[in-house]
């Protein structure tokens, strides 16, 4: 008894029970499709939020009593931090000028105001690949401990709100993911069970003429492997089609400029396919076992 023989029998089986086999494969595909599509949306949402957050960069306000001579040293110190791409010094005067352009239509407002009332600052651009919201926050807290630093801003309230949204969203999404997975598991396992029950007679007769359990299970397990593999790959293929379609739409929509849709990472795709295969094979194994006892 070798693998070749199992494959031959599995192929013959597959042809003989084509409608049932296809139904199981489609059920596997649809069940996983819902979950995969959901993951895809969530994954992109999360990435977009993170990207916007980190795009804001950080503004490090210096204390007003800082010595001019210390500025280049600080500049270098900030540049040396990991993940910092660019550091721009904005002097007190420059800041005042910016304010001036901001209030261009109401210049009078700033008349008589001390040019130095605004603190000097550094504007940090950070590497998006490295920083997520949490790390930006950690960096801000760290910088605020420096003696020369008065305050660090990173569009905090906006990011905070966004993070809070993401945090709540994350819980909702985890719960939904678990529910979706449970539904998929329930539907797939029952479909497999029905398919095996339909072949109960065949299985028990094979036992009666001297087939070992391995001989009987071999083709069934190969079929399950096929169903799990093809079903999950199909669903991922469908999500990929959606992705290609949406990508075009997003690229053409003015409002979403800068947003870039990303397909699920390979590691995620591999785990979906692997879990699907393992689940189908294990359930088939369990479903068939009860007919192998006599």
């Amino acid at each position: 008894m070798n693998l070749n023989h199992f494959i031959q029998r599995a192929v013959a089986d597959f042809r003989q029970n084509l409608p049932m086999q296809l139904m199981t494969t489609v059920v596997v595909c649809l069940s996983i499709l819902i979950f995969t599509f959901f993951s895809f949306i969530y994954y992109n949402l999360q990435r977009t939020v993170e990207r916007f957050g980190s795009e804001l960069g950080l503004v490090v306000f210096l204390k007003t009593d800082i010595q001019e001579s210390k500025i280049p040293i600080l500049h270098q110190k900030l540049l040396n931090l990991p993940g910092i791409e660019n550091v721009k010094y904005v002097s007190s005067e420059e800041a005042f000028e910016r304010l001036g352009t901001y209030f261009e239509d109401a210049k009078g407002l700033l008349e008589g105001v001390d040019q130095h009332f605004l603190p000097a600052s550094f504007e940090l651009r950070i590497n998006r690949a490295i920083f997520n919201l949490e790390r930006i926050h950690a960096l801000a807290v760290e910088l605020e401990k420096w003696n020369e630093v008065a305050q660090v801003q990173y569009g905090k309230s906006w990011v905070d709100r966004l993070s809070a949204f993401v945090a709540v969203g994350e819980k909702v999404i985890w719960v939904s993911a678990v529910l979706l997975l449970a539904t998929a598991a329930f539907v797939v396992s029952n479909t497999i069970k029905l398919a095996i029950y339909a072949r109960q007679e065949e299985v028990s007769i094979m036992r009666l003429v001297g087939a070992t359990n391995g001989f009987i299970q071999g083709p069934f397990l190969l079929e399950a492997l096929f169903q799990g593999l093809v079903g999950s790959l199909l669903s991922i293929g469908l999500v990929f089609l959606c992705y290609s379609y949406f990508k075009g739409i997003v690229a053409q929509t003015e409002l979403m400029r800068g947003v870039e849709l990303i397909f699920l990472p390979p590691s995620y795709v591999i785990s979906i396919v692997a879990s699907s295969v393992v689940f189908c094979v294990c359930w088939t194994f369990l479903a068939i076992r009860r007919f192998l006892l006599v």
Partner: protein
Amino acid sequence: MLRTMKGPIISLRGITKQYPPDIIALSDIDLSIEKGEFVFLTGPSGSGKSTLLKLLSCMERPTSGELSLDDFDLTNLSASQVPYVRRKVGVIFQDFKLITTKTVFENVALSLEVIGLSSEQISKRVRDILELMGLASKTDRYPPQLSGGEQQRVAIARAVVNRPSIILADEPTGNLDRGMTNEVMALVEELNAEGATVIFATHDESLFAHTYRRVLTIHEGRLRA
């Protein structure tokens, strides 16, 4: 396989079989069958003939007593050993037990597939036995498309195609006409002449009326001398 110890190939000691809840199908059966023997098993309907054969093919386990078949101790047989017992035993089931979704050819081939023969060997042996059973033209039919007698012959073909050392035949001629019955008898006799041990359960007294062979009569679960 060489048997070094001489002794009965089938042996039952105080075998009782009780089906739940309290149906005593066999009670206190002692029986020895020698290698190469051909015995008839008869008795009225419901007397326990099929149950006895089911114990020997491990479809049922005895409630008490000791049971051995060839080198296997069926009283303490592990589930993983069951298939190897069944390969030695060709069973012609009273209710045929054919796989309705497989063709006649595939049904018969199954007995040879499980022992791992090549597809050429399988094809040849299956065609030969189907020819012998007069089923050559029915090779690709499915069991529900066959008459009762034809189905019975497929069941016989499947039971004997792997030349088992023990043949358990449960009413193998119940659905056959006189001519076919004689052919089946001739086939089983031939296999017996080649060394197979045969237990032949039947109501049909004409089959054993003039025989010199041992006839076991079972009545309400008890063997009558």
